[in-house]
């Protein structure tokens, strides 16, 4: 009897020991995980701080007005000029071309998959679209330069070997799956009772889709468009490969133009010496790019949160 009480006591002691260890673990783990979670915030801060500090250095040498209204970008040699407008137009034009391709085709794909396709068709098409979305952008760049550009050149006389049209179109194709899948999610969230109600009133399938379902899902659809624009603005390799590095300030689609992203690739690839205006211009352009995409993303979040219809 005496012995077993001793044993029990021993067990309790041992339990206390492991319990105190367990307690320490229970206290440390949440703190460790908190620190890990904060790293994502530090990443954002890191981006902001690096971009901001070098951008400030840039604007000490080049005035704000000169940068944002200058139509000439000539970063090398004597009399270097740093106007961002050629890059801005290049970025906006290539994104606009991409949207002309991606928005109608993406939305129609979404409507087909959500409203018309049978379960069988959907099961085949959706994975294929996922494959299309998973192809690295460098592959699309290769495709644009070696396949789309030659075809376009045989159709459009006067199209330059590197031009903004071809990467714009290919970028649009790349973005189709994104618009399709986000819009389809929005369409799928519209309850069936609304479809049934409209059909019962004698509307055709097209009228149901176009006058009831799409308007009901419009917030999600518009959000997907805005995200797609943001994606196109930030896209790098396709435009770098297929649009060349001419810093033309033009609205002529047949010409070579440089986007903000392509400029960053060109300058970093050329090993700009740290501390030079050229080096700082990199960050000023990146900051502009970052602000553009951030605003787009915030708008998309705002739209889908604010205007979401709850059924």
């Amino acid at each position: 009897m005496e012995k077993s009480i001793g044993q029990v006591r021993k067990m309790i002691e041992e339990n206390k020991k492991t319990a105190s260890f367990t307690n320490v673990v229970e206290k440390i783990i949440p703190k460790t995980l908190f620190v890990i979670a904060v790293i994502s915030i530090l990443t954002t801060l890191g981006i902001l701080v690096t971009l901001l500090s070098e951008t400030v250095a840039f604007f000490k040498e080049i005035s704000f007005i000169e940068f944002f209204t200058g139509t000439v970008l000539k970063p090398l040699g004597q009399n270097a000029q740093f106007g961002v407008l050629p890059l801005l137009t290049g970025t906006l034009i290539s994104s606009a071309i991409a949207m002309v391709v991606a928005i109608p085709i993406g939305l129609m794909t979404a409507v087909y998959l959500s409203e018309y396709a049978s379960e069988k068709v959907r099961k085949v098409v959706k994975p294929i679209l996922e494959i299309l979305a998973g192809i690295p952008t460098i592959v699309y760049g290769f495709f644009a330069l070696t396949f789309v550009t030659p075809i376009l050149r045989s159709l459009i006389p006067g199209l330059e070997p590197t031009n903004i049209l071809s990467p714009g179109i290919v970028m649009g194709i790349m973005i189709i799956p994104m618009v399709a899948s986000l819009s389809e999610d929005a369409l799928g969230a519209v309850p069936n009772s609304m479809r049934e109600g409209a059909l019962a009133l004698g509307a055709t399938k097209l009228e149901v889709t176009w006058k009831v379902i799409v308007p009901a899902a419009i917030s999600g659809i518009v959000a997907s468009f805005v995200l797609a624009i943001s994606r196109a603005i930030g896209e790098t390799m396709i435009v770098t490969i297929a649009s060349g590095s001419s810093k033309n300030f033009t609205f002529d689609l047949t010409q070579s133009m440089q986007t903000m992203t392509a400029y960053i690739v060109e300058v970093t690839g050329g090993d700009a010496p740290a501390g030079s205006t050229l080096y700082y211009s990199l960050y000023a352009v990146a900051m502009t790019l970052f602000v553009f995409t951030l605003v787009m993303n915030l708008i998309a979040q705002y739209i889908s949160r604010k205007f979401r219809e709850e059924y």
Partner: protein
Amino acid sequence: MKYFDSGQIQKKLGSRLLLNQVAKRLFFLATLVGLVVLVILIYRVFSDSMGWINFDFLSNRLSTDPQKAGILGAITGTFWLMVVVAPVTFFLGVGTAIYLEEFAKKGRFQSFIQTNISNLAGVPSIVFGLLGLTVFVRGLGLGAVVLAGGLTMALLVLPIVVVSAQEAIRAVPQYLRDASYGMGATKWQTIKNVVLPAAIPGILTGIILALSRAIGETAPLVVLGIPALLIPLPEGIFDKFTVMPLQIYYWTIDAALVAEYANLAAASIVVLLFILFLMNSVAIFIRNKYQKRY
């Protein structure tokens, strides 16, 4: 009293039905566009690479002579890059997800981290390249080595891992946790022994998808100054390296100088797509095989 004019309806009915049929076919054609482009793209890449993919191409080092050039260096570089990216994203991504799902109190801070992560997901990859250049390559003085590239890539794909891990953890039903607590387990014991094992298929799927994004990503590495022409093979995380997308990039833009470079680029694309295809198959396999539906 007539509520509607049936003649009017009859008159319009024909065009309405016609429009309906036309629209249906139009939507179908639009859906086909994506599929057709995919087929053309793959056919094009394969036909360009015909005869260029062989054992020599996979086992040779880089060379300016197209006949001797191989991608062993790029494959080795990609391997070492993954050696850095995989554990770092796992640790950071899953850690963040556990914190957000299991520990963080619902409130301002939690939604702040959440918003921050979805914004990070929308930052162009090239901006991450500048972050890596400033912080890892120059700031820490690492140079254009595997570790610098890997850390940059890890931050880039972090949102993918966090979001998929969160979804996986959220899908573990509450009664499993309650049962664990009921048997006297502590919170961490419950997470470690019950929640994570149940969520691991979803987490792994997310990590594989994140890695396949990292394998195909080019822009940030160009910004970091990773060279494409590199003869020595990397042997560790502090060595200089190159990866397949960079080889494709330089071969594509130099194809104007040496026509065969286009074939080399196409051949590398086939190898890259094959690796991505394998990884995605594994992800889908894991998802279908081990994903339990509660």
